[in-house]
């Protein structure tokens, strides 16, 4: 009796395992090997070939250049400027691809996941879908990708990605280099392995945004760690930077607020009746 009842599940399990093996074989045959841990090769600035801040020579409109200058001026005296990341605020696209901490790719025929050690993942849909009619915006945006076989060897080499529908505020880097508050950003990427070094990955990123007078293209380069160690990096665990209103404060060793700037006013405590 036991023998007869166990045949069905056994056959089902065999079919399931075969199906998984088939998908895995498809992925291995057609898709590039992007496994392992990818670490940035440059600094934390947006264009890795240029210095942070004004050195980026970002093609900003006059209005957004003024916003950027105000951010730099605030940071020069200890403020956070436009960069809210100190309070664990999400960075969003395209800044996610600065990969401050390592990233990992999980490839499958219908979707590619980009996992970050310290940020929410990106999902890049490669199932041939069209843009949704009215999606809820997110910091990482909505990404649709297309695999390309550039050299005709029946294996994909390049993942072309377009990302829209982002939420803000967002900046390119920690200096507060801004994107437009209308959040109409479109980000186009070409991600591929280096042709002469399979442990190097390139991401050519073009940002089209109303804060810019023209599309801004930069290329990020990542190096592969094949035997990676991964740790948790959750910003909410023990962040000592405190955002209250437009001010940022720093927690002391004994848990009190300290000023970050000279002459900074304490927070407004009007709703505390026992002060």
């Amino acid at each position: 009796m036991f023998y007869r009842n166990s045949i069905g599940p056994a056959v089902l399990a065999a079919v399931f395992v075969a199906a998984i093996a088939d998908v895995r074989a498809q992925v291995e045959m057609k898709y590039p090997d992007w496994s392992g841990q990818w670490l940035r090769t440059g600094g934390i600035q947006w264009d890795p070939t240029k210095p942070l801040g004004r050195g980026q020579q970002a093609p900003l409109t006059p209005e957004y250049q003024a916003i950027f200058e105000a951010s730099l001026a605030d940071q020069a005296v200890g403020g956070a400027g436009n960069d809210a990341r100190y309070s664990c605020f999400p960075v969003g696209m395209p800044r996610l691809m600065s990969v401050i901490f390592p990233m990992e790719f999980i490839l499958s025929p219908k979707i590619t996941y980009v996992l970050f050690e310290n940020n929410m993942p990106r999902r890049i849909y490669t199932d041939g879908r069209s843009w949704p009619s009215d999606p809820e915006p997110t910091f990482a945006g909505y990404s649709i990708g297309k695999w390309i076989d550039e050299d005709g060897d029946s294996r994909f080499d390049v993942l072309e990605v377009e990302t829209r529908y982002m939420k803000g505020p967002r900046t390119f880097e920690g200096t507060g280099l801004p994107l437009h508050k209308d959040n109409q950003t479109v980000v186009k990427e070409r991600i591929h392995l280096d042709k002469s070094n399979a442990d190097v990955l390139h991401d050519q990123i073009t940002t089209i945004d109303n804060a810019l007078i023209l599309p801004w293209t930069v290329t990020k380069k990542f190096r592969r760690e094949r035997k990676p160690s991964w740790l948790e990096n959750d910003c909410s665990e023990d962040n000592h930077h405190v955002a209250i209103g437009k001010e940022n404060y720093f927690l002391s060793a004994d848990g009190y607020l300290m000023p970050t700037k000279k002459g900074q006013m304490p927070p407004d405590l009007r709703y505390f009746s026992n002060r």
Partner: protein
Amino acid sequence: MRRQLSALAGWAFVATSGAALAHHSFAMFDQENPIELQGVVKEFKFTSPHTFIIIETKQQDGSTQLWSLEGGAPSALVRDGWSSKTLKPGDELQLTIEPLRSGAPGGSWSVGKTKFKDGRPIMVTP
């Protein structure tokens, strides 16, 4: 096997540490005007998003002061050979830190600018 961070590796880390290892701006710390601190570790917080050394220093009038010093992320330190056990309460350190611009007892620390009070480098395990 234990190894000592070579001066070169130390400088390489310094070059990529501090603001470069931060996930946010470190503008609140005065990077142009670092200061020297000596004191006793009260706590080494191997926490995200950034590690902290809580250190007690002695002031000129004999009183003590607690400093809260922010460093690299734990994952970055681990990749450099550090662990949550590298420092322990009671360790006596000398550090070159970048202080809060406000003058309050806080700042940022980095691996390459931290050693034991007697000048010994911090030993790390690869």
